[in-house]
Structures are given as C-alpha cells and as structure tokens.
C-alpha cells in the first residue's frame, strides 16, 4: 500500500487558514446577534433621554434667561417669575435628574449579568466557547464592545444633563461637590456606569446563574455607591471638583479593569 505523506514542515504550511484564530471583526456580528435586545433597548432609552433633556432643557434655559434679565428683582412680576421657576421648572428639572441617577443601577442589574451568565446557565458555552475565536477573545471582545458603548452613552448623557441642570445650580444653591450633582457630572457618571456593567458581568460569571447574579449585583452596587457617598469621598486626598473627579474615575476604572480581568480568568478556568 502506497501512502503519500507530505513531510512535517509542509503539513504546517498546508494546514491553511483553519489554524489561524478567527478575526476579531467577527465578534461585532456575534455581539449584535446575541445582545440585540439589550443594545436596542439601551439605544431607545438613550435617544428618548437625549430628546427629552434637549426639549425640556431649552425651555428651562429660556425661562432662566427671562428670570435673570428681569430687574429689579424685588418687582412683583420678577418675583412671580422666580416662584414659577422654583416650582414648575424645578419639578421638570428634578425628576429627569433623579431618573438619570438611577440608570447605572438598572445597567448593573440588566446589562451586566446576562452577558456571561446566560451562556453558562443555558450550557451554550460548550458551543460558543469552542469556536474558532476561542473563549478569551470571545469574552474580551464582547465586554469591550458593550462596555465602551455603555460608557460613551453614559458620558454623553451626563454632559447633556450638566448643561440641562446648570440653571438650578444657582436657584437651588447647589455646588459642584453636592453629592447628587457630583455623581452626574464630569467623568464620574461614565465611570460608575462602566463599573456597574463590569460588576454585573463578573458576578454573572462567578455565580453562573442570571437571576441570583442580578440580585447580588444590585446589592453590591448599591453598597459600593452608599459607601462612596457616605464615607469614601470624605477621605479622598483632594477636595476640589476636577481632582476629585479624576481620582474617583481613576479608582473606578481600576476596579472595572480588575473585574474584567477576574471575569476572563473565570472564563478560562471553566472546563467546557
């Protein structure tokens, strides 16, 4: 029997494209397919929030311009404007502010845990993690795509909210360092959203079950936020706005990186 066997060196070259890992760009499509519910939902809410903040914000800024232009301030007509601004306009400004503050909690609960935990729960990781791209790149690509999208959206919303809320800083006598304002301005909001997402993903990978991960992530995120509000911020080495923002964004970013590293380590450890 004659068997043709090419020499070993030729075998390597002849192995062809199957031995190269699949390209990263393939993960764009996979992430879209697997998470289109999340991506569509978050995009719809984002667009609605931008539209709402723009429309209401323009009206509030218009009313505030009228208020500041009204002189002398003791005139009954100007007092009337002031009363109106502090009641009707303040309500229109207060509730969106509260809603935006609550968004990272919802991100922590709904966006993070299903990313890895759903595969583990449904046992589809046996298929997904044995594809050409490999489980580490699979997870890293998904986290990078979803995480950066959420962070960019959060940053945009926080900048828009800062513009939206600017008139109330004077009328409600708030400062940049008031906790509710500090949370939603500068880099803080985007950093908290990213941390919320990474916390959810890590706990999902750790607990391997979506619903318990959602509950635990909620508890962990609320505890972290409360600890920061009531304790940590008092012990920062700086106490003016931008240095504090940079410090907070810094440690939140470090925490997010650690959580992502932890997630990838867990993903590597699981026997498929």
């Amino acid at each position, binding site marked *: 029997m004659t068997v043709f066997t090419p020499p070993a060196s030729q075998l390597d070259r002849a192995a062809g494209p199957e031995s190269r890992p699949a390209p990263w760009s393939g993960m764009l499509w996979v992430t879209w397919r697997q998470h289109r*519910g999340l991506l569509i*939902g978050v995009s719809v809410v984002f667009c609605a929030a931008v539209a709402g903040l723009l429309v209401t914000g323009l009206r509030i800024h218009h009313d505030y311009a009228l208020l500041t232009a009204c002189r002398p301030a003791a005139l*009954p007509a100007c*007092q*009337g404007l002031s009363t109106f601004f502090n009641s009707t306009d303040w309500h229109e400004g207060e509730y969106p502010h509260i809603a935006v503050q609550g968004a990272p909690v919802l991100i922590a609960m*709904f966006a993070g845990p*299903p990313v890895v935990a759903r595969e583990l729960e449904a046992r589809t990781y046996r298929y997904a993690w044995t594809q050409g791209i490999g489980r580490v790149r699979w997870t890293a690509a998904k986290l990078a795509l979803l995480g950066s999208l959420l962070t960019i959206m959060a940053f945009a919303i926080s900048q828009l909210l800062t513009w939206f809320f600017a008139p109330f800083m004077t009328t409600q006598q708030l400062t940049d360092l008031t906790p509710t304002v500090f949370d939603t301005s500068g880099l803080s909001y985007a950093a908290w959203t990213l941390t919320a997402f990474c916390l959810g993903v890590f706990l999902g990978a750790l607990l391997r079950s*979506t*619903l*318990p991960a*959602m*509950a635990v992530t*909620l*508890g962990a995120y*609320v505890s972290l936020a*409360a600890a920061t*509000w*009531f304790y940590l911020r008092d012990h920062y080495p700086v106490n003016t706005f931008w240095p504090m923002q940079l410090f907070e964004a810094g440690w939140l970013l470090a925490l997010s990186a650690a959580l992502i590293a932890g997630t990838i380590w867990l993903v590597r450890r699981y026997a498929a």
Partner: protein
Amino acid sequence: MNVLTLPAQPGQDTAPRPVPWRRMAWVTWRQQRATLIAVPTVLAAVAVFLVVFGLKAHHDYAALLNCPLDQGQQSNACAKLFSTFNSTDWPLANTVGILVQLAPVLIGAFAGAPLLARALENGTYRFAWTQGLMRERQAIAKLALLGVTLVVLAWAFGELFSWFFQPFLWTEQISRLTEGAFASSGIVFPAFTLVAFAIGAFLGMLLRRVIPALAATLGVYLAVRLGAWALRGQYPVTVVTSNANQFSAFGTPSQPGFAWILSTWYTGPGGKPANQSAVGQLLEQYQSNPHPTVSVGQTLAEHGYTEWNRWIPPSHYWPMQFIEAGWLLVLAVALMAGTVWLVRHRAA
C-alpha cells in the same frame, strides 16, 4: 393457559384522583427555596441595620423632644441639637427611606417574574404541567403560598421601618399621609409587595421570558405607584376648612403627626373668589417681616380675605390605609386570576 381475572368491584373508584393540595407545599418549597431563603435573609440583614441605627436615632430624638420645631423659637442648645440630628441621622435615614420604597418592587419582581416564566423559558413546563396535579392548581398553590409568605415578611419589615422612621416624621415635618411615608407603613406596604408579586407573575406568563418580565414589572409597578399617588388625594376622607390656625397645633410630638394639605385657596369679602396676585403680594409683605406681631390669618382677615384649605387630618390615616390596601388587594387578586387563566389557556 390459565388466567385469573377479577370482576370489577362496584364500590371501587377507578378514576384518577387529583393529587392532594398539600403535596404542592412540598413542590413549591423545592422549586422556590432560593427565593424563600434569600428574601428573609436579605430582609433580616437590613432589619439588623435598622435596629442598630434606629436605636441611635431614637436616643438622639429623645433629647430633642423638649425643643420647639420653629427655628425662630429655639434656644441655642436646641438649635445645636437639631443641627447635629439633621446632619448625622437624617441623611442616612433619608437614603434608607428611598431604598425602602424600592423594596416591594424588588421582592415582588424577583419572586414573581421567575415563578412561572422560568418553567416556560426552560421548557420544563412540559414535564411539570403534565403531572397528576393540574396546571391551574399548581399555579394557584404557588401564587397563594408565596404570596402569603411575602405579605407576612413585608408587613413585619414595614412595621420595623415605621418604628425606625418615626422620629424623622416630626423633625422633618413629614406627614404620615404623604407618598413616601404612607406607602412604606401600615398595611399598604405589604399590599404593594403583593401587587408587585402579582404583576411579576402575570407578566411572566404573558411574556414567557424571565428577564423581560422582570424589566416590565419594574415599569408597570412604577405606573401603579404613580397612579396611587394621584388617586390618594381623591379619597373621600378630605376636609375643607377656613380655620387655618389649627395647622400650627400639629407641631408637638404628642400629636399623631402632620396634616396633609392638598390645596389652598383664598376668597374675598362675601365669599367671592379673591384676586390671587393681590393676596400673593399681601403674603409676601407678611413673610418679609421677620418679627410679625399678628398671625397671617389675622392679616388676611383685616383685608377681608379668608384662607381655605382642603386637607386630610392625620386621624384619617387608617381609613386611607384601608381604602388603598383594599383596591391594591383587588388588583392583585385580579392579576393572579389573569395569571391562572393564562396558565389554563396557553398551550405553552
């Protein structure tokens, strides 16, 4: 071949009997033990915090009881006590109060949404619903057992929170009848928990997926809370009065709390509607005087105006609680009936 046959005995019942209800208690425990263990554990942990912090708050509050609420009448020692209380105890209590508002929907959504939806999502309903116990009975038993457990736990937690929050009702001049305090006390807090649970179970059957049902439960519950808030001012317990002086009497800690003033309007001489801007100017003039010699009511009376208030006295707290808990209970039962109907009529 010899075959032994026994004729059918007339007294024997050969029709299959449905499985007795008490078996469902065991099935519910096995299926729901994660929820049934986790919810009491989390509530107990928060309860420990409430007890520890609440004892401190009550201790600080006892020192304040002899001080008047009106800042203009406080001595230096009283003002200092109040300011310490408002900077150390109140911010944390306020945050806890806001989080407790979320407790009913979180408990209800996490317990209710996966109740039936998880079996549908996993496909295990094909096994579970074809057991000896009919599918409607399974659903009714699970809803009833879990519903009763959650109501009892929520009621106990609500009572503890009411005790915790009681000092702040006086120091922050919050009426027990207003949204935050009313919905987290008495029988309305467990009623909201039950409604959230019922919404979760119903949406779980409707949407057949756990996480969309969870998200939808949060949205629907928010709508129910806002609706309850809007409805509360329409309950047939309001009083209209022209005696505005009685409101200052609610400031002492021995009173059952502050009244809820729904609206204020002014009439001129002879009961005719007053010129609002004229009244507004008069009030601003009065408020700009730091040491008034007469009360605001007298000032208005001198100009022929009468202040009318539509308000709810704090003594009407329990009638309002019963009205609200009543319609919430009806809503919850209707949703559970809808859930059982969906179980019966959905092939899957």
